[in-house]
């Protein structure tokens, strides 16, 4: 359920290393808890994000949650499909439902996040 090669934040974001860059999304646990995602507000390509600072918002009908960057750096890609298909976050949170790709300034920040097993424990699914 939670890919072993991803890193996980306490705020339920995942981070996946892709040769120097980091792809970011929210976990299945977070997506399920939000219920049907209706809107995702994402930064523009080129903007800067900071480690564990908000970079966007994900919304369901009755709730809005901030998204926290699991790594600092510049946004180089944004998942434009989410604009018309926010349901991808529910359907495939760890894949098609990704949110941004970051050119990390300090990839070692990822070491401060949890691995899959620690995350499963964190959410009580271990």
């Amino acid at each position, binding site marked *: 359920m939670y890919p072993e090669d991803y890193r996980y934040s306490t705020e339920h974001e995942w981070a996946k290393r892709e040769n120097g860059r980091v792809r970011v999304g929210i976990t299945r646990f977070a997506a399920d808890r939000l219920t049907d995602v209706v*809107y995702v*507000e994402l930064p523009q390509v080129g903007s800067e994000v900071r480690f564990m600072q908000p970079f966007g918002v994900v*919304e*369901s*009908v*009755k*709730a*809005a949650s901030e998204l926290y960057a699991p790594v600092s750096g510049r946004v180089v890609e944004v998942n434009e499909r989410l604009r018309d298909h926010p349901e991808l976050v529910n359907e495939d949170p760890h894949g098609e439902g990704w949110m941004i790709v970051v050119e990390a300034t300090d990839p070692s920040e990822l070491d401060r996040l949890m691995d899959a097993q620690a995350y499963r424990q964190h959410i009580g699914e271990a």
Partner: protein
Amino acid sequence: MRYIPTTPEEREYMLRLIGVRSVEDLFADVPDSVRLRRPLRLRPALSDPEVLRYLGALANRNAHADRLTCFVGAGAYDHFVPPAVWQLVGRGEFLTAYTPYQAEIMQGELQATYEYQTMVCELLGMEVANASMYDGASALGEAAVMARDLTKRDRVVVSRAVHPEYRQVLRTYTEPLGIRVVELPHEAGTTPPGPRELNGRTAAVVVQHPNFFGCLEDVRGWAEAAHGAGALLVVACSDPLAFGLLEPPGALGADIIAAEGQPLGNPLNFGGPYLGIIATRQEFVRRMPGRLVGATVDRHGRRGFVLTLQTREQHIRREKATSNICTNEALNALAAAVYLSLLGPQGVRQVAELCLRKADYLKSRVAELPGFQLPFRAPTFHEFVVRTPRPAEALVRALIREGFLAGLPLGRFYRGMRDCLLVAVTETRTREEMDRFVEALERACRRGRQAVGGRVL
């Protein structure tokens, strides 16, 4: 108390069931130190007929628009309200409901609001309108904050030909947020567009159209100037009926419109409740304050309506909400929807044209009076400024004795305009009333001139 149905026996029964001996026990958690140990000192209670008589007497002491022929506007207009409007809106089903939280039993309110949003968009030439704000002035305050959020800039430039009370509200809403408000002078009644005062920190330019003096502004020119500086154009408006005839701000490049909807079927009410309208472009909808109704389907596939995009609102987003507004002016919005349904496209055009023509008639007649002048040459809609031979305050007082509410003396808001009167004419004024008004003005000034020699005004 006549609105409490509970009898003494029922009261005893309930207390017993709750397991307390007296009502006093139900307040045991209120510390003694804060209890009120004496009866409230209020005026004595009255019977129903007495209430009607007492408040009726207070009402009678007011010179309302059926007593004095009304030529004052300035943000509140004496348009004709078809009786059907409030006979429908006043139905208990609308009047005594609340915010449509339970959509399945509130389709009436929700659908009417959706229709209202559509009508407002049509009238103003805009893409989205919300379910209502408190009034035009507070809608403008919120529009400025919205512009700041959208542009991430902190400076608002506002024309001095925007209603002075709206400008005051704008300042109250923006000042605590560190938004700087800069005022643009008007020149001969309008605000000529230009890059003056616009810079890289300007979030919005605010003009009113038609403006406070009744003059038409160059909205398109302002849209270009604002957009050229990366700012938004916010257009305020105190009578949307103008756009039955005039090209609406949405079609002229406005980004946000903040308007007063009182003229759309709502009574004068000594200033409220009125109807705040806010409308904007689709792309800005998520920064919009207030409730929005959207269409959807039910579980059987039938069309239905719900409150939507609620994550903008205080009950979900709390301190990050786009506004704190909760209770709005839904009933006044409903009145606007009924009113606009009755008028239709031809009706709004006809009302607007009547206002324009009648105002023009009065304006020309007044301009011919000795000592009266039109200080501004710009085209006007249903309101205009006239320079009077006597201080406008005194003139207004003199005209009251003749049965007229002559207009708003502008000295109240603008230094150097003590001899200026703002006069409004709606479709409800007749030629005969206007002719009598002109005669009365003339008389008052003749008398005034005589008086100047002796006792001052």
